[in-house]
């Protein structure tokens, strides 16, 4: 009797660990079958960008329970910073066909943009959110909306309200053939760089001392403080990382689409926020999953001629999740699960 129960719980635990990867794999296989390889790659690419932005939402919510509505605009600013660095500082005009030069340019672009955006994120936290740390929850929420408008207007002031072109450093002609379909290397590059950043983030949160401080702060700020965690520093690092990832998303957005505009943050921000909620707000792996899920829904709608209703489907999904599974796909807190 006792042996049987041990066996079944071991099996259950084993099932628990493989259930998620299995269902993700099943979903991807189904999507690939339904959409075909071209649209599958489109969805993965769009999902990679949504996921990078969604991470920032979810990290900030996880640690200070603030829905940072300015985060979509931080992403937008990131795309402009990337554009400025790429075209004005590095002097790029179009694609670079020299592979070593392309590699160096892209790395420098990522490093500088992530650096600038991380600093901007920390600055926003220091000036707009930290003074309101003990204020009622509504106050920082409204401040976030204010920050969102400030960022939009600043960008409009400096770069104008029109669509701005961004140099597409990776040549769009480069492609490989996968089972008869032409898959652009640019798409693979976008997916790969996002996945690398997401894996790095997971490792940082789960393996480093600062990562542990972030998890404990999100579980219980006062107790963490008593255990010697520097709360202000930890929260600032969360903003540094979240905004840095938004900067990286800005870089890949520019490289992939070749343009940006000052109102980019509103729509994309809303989608990324939805992704964070779908995945279970506060949960970093969930945010990434949610980003890909939304991208598949949108691309699927557009692939079959129902692009008109793509937005409606995405936000219906949000409502359905909030009603029936408010903790999202993976549940709310990474901290609680660790």
């Amino acid at each position, binding site marked *: 009797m006792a042996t049987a129960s041990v066996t079944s719980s071991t099996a259950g635990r084993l099932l628990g660990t493989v259930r998620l990867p299995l269902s993700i794999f099943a979903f991807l296989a189904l999507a690939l079958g339904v959409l075909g390889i071209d649209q599958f790659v489109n969805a993965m690419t*769009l999902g990679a960008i949504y996921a990078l932005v969604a991470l920032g939402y979810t990290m900030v919510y996880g640690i200070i329970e603030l829905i940072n509505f300015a985060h979509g605009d931080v992403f937008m600013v990131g795309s402009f910073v990337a554009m400025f660095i790429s075209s004005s500082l590095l002097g790029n005009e179009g694609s670079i066909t020299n592979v070593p030069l392309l590699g160096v340019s892209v790395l420098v672009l990522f490093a500088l943009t992530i650096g600038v955006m991380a600093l901007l994120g920390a600055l926003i936290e220091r000036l707009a959110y930290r003074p309101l740390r003990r204020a009622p929850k509504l106050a920082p929420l409204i401040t976030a909306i204010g920050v969102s408008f400030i960022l939009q207007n600043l960008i409009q002031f400096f770069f104008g309200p029109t669509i701005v072109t961004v140099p597409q450093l990776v040549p769009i002609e480069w492609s490989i053939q996968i089972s008869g379909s032409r898959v652009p290397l640019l798409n693979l590059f976008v997916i790969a760089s996002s996945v690398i950043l997401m894996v790095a983030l997971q490792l940082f949160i789960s393996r480093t001392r600062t990562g542990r401080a972030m998890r404990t702060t999100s579980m219980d700020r006062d107790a963490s403080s008593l255990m010697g965690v520097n709360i202000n520093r930890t929260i600032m690092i969360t903003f540094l990382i979240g905004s840095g990832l938004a900067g990286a998303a800005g870089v890949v957005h520019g490289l992939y*689409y070749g343009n940006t505009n000052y109102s980019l943050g509103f729509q994309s921000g809303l989608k990324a926020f939805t992704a964070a909620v779908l995945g279970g707000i506060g949960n970093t792996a969930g945010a990434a999953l949610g980003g890909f899920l939304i991208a598949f829904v949108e*691309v699927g709608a557009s692939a079959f001629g129902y692009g008109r209703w793509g937005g409606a489907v995405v936000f219906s999904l949000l409502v359905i999740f909030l009603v029936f599974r408010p903790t999202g796909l993976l549940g709310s807190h990474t901290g609680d699960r660790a």
Partner: protein
Amino acid sequence: MKVFNKKGLSALAAVAILAAACGGSTASTAGKTLTIGISFPLNGASLASAGPARDGALLAIKEASIEGYTLKAKVLDHAKDGAHNPDQAAADMLTFVGQEDVVAVVGPFNSASARAQIPVSSEAGLLQCSPSNTNPTLTKGADGEALRGGRAVNYVRVATTDDLQGPAVAVYAKENGAKKIYILDSTDAYGKGVADAFETQFKADGGTVVGRQGLPTGTTDFSAAATAAKAAGADSIFYGGVTSDGAPLFRNALAQAGIGALPFYGADGIYDGTTEGSYIATAGANAENSYASQAAIENIPGKDDFNVKFKAEYGKDAEGYAFAGYACAQIIVEGIKAAVAGGDVTRETVRAAVVDKGTVFETVLGSVSFDAVGDTTQRIISLYKVEGGAWKFVKEINYGN
């Protein structure tokens, strides 16, 4: 008495022409002030397209002189954050209505703003002339009748309507050899409307629509639609919408999907010059082999003379709706002169003079007159093609009177 008036009118016209010929803005003899309102979206992204219309109207008002009256212009801007704002457009129209010396208004630029303004101006009997509105329902049928509340026509326009623009592009696409078209629209009144009109005509001429869908303004990812167009085997693309809805982004996505060489058709929504933020500037090299239309005449009779005047005044070439804006102001000035000749200048006499079906106005666009609902009888659609990074005029289709 009548004869005298006619003589007076022609004498005044002669004076006006003389003044215009001298390019003079001779300070009008002091007298009663008459103001022509100018109502456009004039900041941010809207300035590139509506700015020339304003400049044209201001130039015509500056050139005009009316004996015994001082003619002034008053410009109100109804763009918010760079986008035309119909609520603000209606509020601006109320401002004009409230200012007694405003006898007529040039504007607005966008059909949605016209929809907000016409009920206000119509109630006050204040004439307005739009250089660019192309939505048919602003004037025609039950919709037009409802908009002006059953009152006399007070709204005229020198641009012809979208119901001709979509079909004209369809006919042209067919001539270019398009057989299988993929249609994308921006889901709003203009984009979907012009795409519907295009689709109807294209099908009627024996073409096949291999796919059709809409992606709203604010969409940044057009890759799925581009891939769908490729999968459907389209030989040409039509986009119903304006540049800021995402036309150049769609064009770029098509190139990234490997079908950037297909002809790309649009209407006047993508015919917006080459300035920053325009279709050509944003799509860059991908813009080649794109086609667009404009609901206006391209072969403007006095184009070169007008260009010289315009450049002398503003230091730049006249483009886009500069001609139409100038024509609107010309028509209003002629209306005022007719009212002066009639001995009584009021909003009502100016309105009646302009909407009169029998009157033919000689404008920079050529001869213009208005039908029973205020639409221009000059029904010409001009077609353009992108060549070497600029719009080149191809031909015009004249739908006659």
